[in-house]
């Protein structure tokens, strides 16, 4: 209950702040006091009095935040030109003249609304107030510190582009624009998060993406009310279908080429400022087993590797449960000599196969998690300890049987073959309930769990698209790029799945 109460309290807090407008005309000192009061005298805010024109005809006040603006740019493009100002002869107002003739920056805005101006200040713009005028300039001089475009680290390919998104949303938009130079590329932005004011962009290809899907995405994003957004996963969790499903219904990628390909397939991309991972929606289950590499390798190989991935998924999900079911329920299904060997190994192992399996799988998960969270320098120690503890000592101490170690290893390695990290996690997690079913009902239980899983998968939807499409509902044309990949001219970018499986 306390959870809900807390939520209500947060909602109450989110009231729009009172709008402030600039009273006309104001003295520059007053303006400075105003700003200091509003922001609480921040130490990185710079107030710079500038004389406009070589005869200092007008007095101006330039306000900006030091660390997020480009100082050179301010002095070269704002302060210098202002010095060369001279009163126009034809009687145009000094504001218009400054804007149109003197200030030579691209993004410039004139406003009298303090709320907008102060927001702009926080976005890295410089504000220019002029004594005796009721309007002020907001000049784009932002210079956010961030990473350069680097090689992708999570989704690598052998043959293919080596760019990846950065934390800067503008860079990311540029990377997409670089790949799709079409007037149909639509970018809709909005700010989310009461305090963070994070920019979120919805990108799609007009005419290719389904209008309903775009509308649905926009609708769901507009519903979000949060204090702050720190990553794209927060958005993903709030807008996805099947919130409690173990399977992700929104994909993410750090590769601009995958993003561009998804746009061409009619998907909607969601960019979140501050995250190098963009969201792709809607996605189907089979999408998670396809990689960019598939399209950069020969199609025979690509198809073969896709089969390998599906096999790996099966192994990850089922290997421990099959081992448990076979050794505790269905011994007659093993070849006799294998059974003899397994029985010899299990001789003296104190735990039932199920406990043994759970123990080893949990040990593996602990080691894996430790390997990820450890500082890189210590990582090696983990792998050494892991190899010795899991591999040898456990067997020699008679705690687990050697065959169990093989099962755990093959499960672990298979799980790393799955290209999408998010679905690999879901499947790795699901093998534990699978093991429970196998341990209590044998293959009957495994089949039962698989049935339940299949039913769940078939009932899932991602923004109106059936999750199991194009397998169920079946689309023959899309089979060319599902389990196998044929040569590109044989299938259009936009699959039947996105066209037809809406209900």
């Amino acid at each position, binding site marked *: 209950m306390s959870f809900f109460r807390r939520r209500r309290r947060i909602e109450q807090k989110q009231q729009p702040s009172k709008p402030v407008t600039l009273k006309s005309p104001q003295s520059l000192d007053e303006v400075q006091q105003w700003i200091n009061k509003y922001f609480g005298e921040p130490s990185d805010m710079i107030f710079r009095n500038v004389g406009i024109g070589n005869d200092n005809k007008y007095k101006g006040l330039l306000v900006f935040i030091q660390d997020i603006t480009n100082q050179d740019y301010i002095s070269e493009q704002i302060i210098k030109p202002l010095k060369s100002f001279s009163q126009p002869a034809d009687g145009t107002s000094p504001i218009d003249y400054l804007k149109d003739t003197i200030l030579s920056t691209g993004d410039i805005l004139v406003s009298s609304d303090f709320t907008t101006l102060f927001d702009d200040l926080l976005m890295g713009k410089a504000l220019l107030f002029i004594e005796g005028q009721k309007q002020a300039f907001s000049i784009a001089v932002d210079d956010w510190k961030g990473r350069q475009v680097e090689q992708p680290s999570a989704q690598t390919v052998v043959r293919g582009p080596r760019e990846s998104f950065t934390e800067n949303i503008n860079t990311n938009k540029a990377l997409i624009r670089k790949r799709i130079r079409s007037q149909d590329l639509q970018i809709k932005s909005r700010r989310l998060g009461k305090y963070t004011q994070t920019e979120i962009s919805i990108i799609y290809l007009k005419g290719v993406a389904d209008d309903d899907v775009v509308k649905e995405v926009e609708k769901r994003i507009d519903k979000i009310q949060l204090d702050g957004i720190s990553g794209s996963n927060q958005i993903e969790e709030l807008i996805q279908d099947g919130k409690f499903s173990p399977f992700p219904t929104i994909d993410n990628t750090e590769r601009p080429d995958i993003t561009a390909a998804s746009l061409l397939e009619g998907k909607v991309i969601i960019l979140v400022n501050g995250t190098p991972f963009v969201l792709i929606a809607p996605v189907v289950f089979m999408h998670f087993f396809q990689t960019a590499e598939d399209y950069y390798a020969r199609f025979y190989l690509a198809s073969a590797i896709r089969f390998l991935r599906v096999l790996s998924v099966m192994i990850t999900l089922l290997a421990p449960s099959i081992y448990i079911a076979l*050794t*505790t*329920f269905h*011994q*007659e299904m093993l070849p*006799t000599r294998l*059974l*003899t*060997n*397994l*029985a*010899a*190994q*299990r*001789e*003296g*192992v104190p735990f*039932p*196969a199920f406990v043994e399996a759970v123990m080893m799988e949990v040990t593996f998960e602990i080691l894996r998690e430790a390997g990820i969270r450890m500082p890189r320098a210590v990582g090696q120690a983990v792998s050494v300890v892991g190899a010795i503890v899991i591999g040898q000592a456990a067997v020699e101490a008679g705690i687990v049987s050697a065959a169990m170690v093989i099962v755990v290893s093959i499960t672990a390695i298979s799980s790393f073959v799955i290209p999408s990290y998010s679905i690999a996690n879901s499947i790795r997690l699901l093998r534990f309930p699978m093991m429970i079913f196998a341990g*209590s*009902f*044998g293959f*009957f239980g495994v089949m*039962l769990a698989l049935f339940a899983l299949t039913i769940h998968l078939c009932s899932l939807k991602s923004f109106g698209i059936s999750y199991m499409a194009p397998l169920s509902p079946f689309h023959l044309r899309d089979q060319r790029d599902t389990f196998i990949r044929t040569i590109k001219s044989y299938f259009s970018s936009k699959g039947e799945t996105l066209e037809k499986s809406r209900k």
Partner: protein
Amino acid sequence: MKRLLIGLFIILLLTGCWNRRELNEIAITYGLGIDKDGDDFVVTAQVINPEQVSGQKGGEASGTRSPVILHEERDKTVLGAIRKLSRTASRKIYVAHLYILVFGEEFAKAGIGDALDLIVRDQEFRTDFYVFIAKGSTAKDILATATPFSVSPAQEIYDRLHYSNRHYNPTKATGIRELLTNTSAEGIEPVVQSLLYKKSDVEPVQQIGSGPVPEPPLPTGNIAVLERDQLVGWLNETQADTYNTVTNNIKHAVSQFLCDEDQYGAIESTNVKATLKPEYQVTPKMNIDIKLTGKINELDCEQFTTTPQKIRELENIISKYLEEMHTSNIKKVQEDIGVDIFGFGREFFRKKPQIWKQLKNNWSETFSQLEVDINVKVRITGTSTTDDSYLKRLRKGK
């Protein structure tokens, strides 16, 4: 929530195979022997000790304990006796991985039918093990003998039969399924391979290299002929050869033939196919066409030249030789044993069901007098890697 609970409850009711047992709770039985003593069944189980059998290193005290253990119990039913075995075996006897099932000769003479119902009925028995009759001994004698090659005697016997069945004509491997079918089917009677119990007078070899090379303690014996479930006679080697040829139980046969006055050659057949054609005019008659394709693999006649004409002649000689052999063998079986092991009756039943209705009541007598016409066609496709006999070159060189 209510629905979920009901669903879970239903799942609990569906547990048809609630027989969870760990690998170290079962006694994997490789060989099972059944004898009869008075009214009681005597069941012998050869249970393995996995650690000693698997051949893995690092097992506790590997090689110091016996790989197999023999348990024996008697009771009024087979299952009763098997369950009684748990008095001596610390685990449940697990028969799904049975290699061999042995019946003692005395029991077989009296009829093994009494013991078969359990095997038909029990779901734990897989129907892929071989059946044997212990010739001149009890099943226990066979299962109590250690073998030199494999640590588990039952496994060795199984392997021996399994491979011999492929490569050696007279061997017949009878699986339990075939036995069960043929004991109850019309117009065919089962045969079962036998094992001889040979009491070894040689002390078991303690160290490699010391003492004489041991002979296999359980040689394969003749094939036993059963009528229904009773042992009625034995086939000798060439009769077994004929049996396997006629019943198409030969894959890669080796047929020997006389190529010179007293010298032999051998052809290895790649394909042997016997076709049974029942015929009925006044009296029933069975025509058997045997087609044999193969190549010469051994030729001990130096005079023989492998020209095409000679080989054609040879084909005729072999055909005639095999024809005579098979004819006389079948005749012997008809006269001496008088049991239709070849399935001639079944062939009548399949191809001439109307006639079979008349014949079936008196089939065993009809079989003894049945006219059998064997026609062998041999085709030699090659002479392997050389042409004339090596002997020719050997003698000529000197």
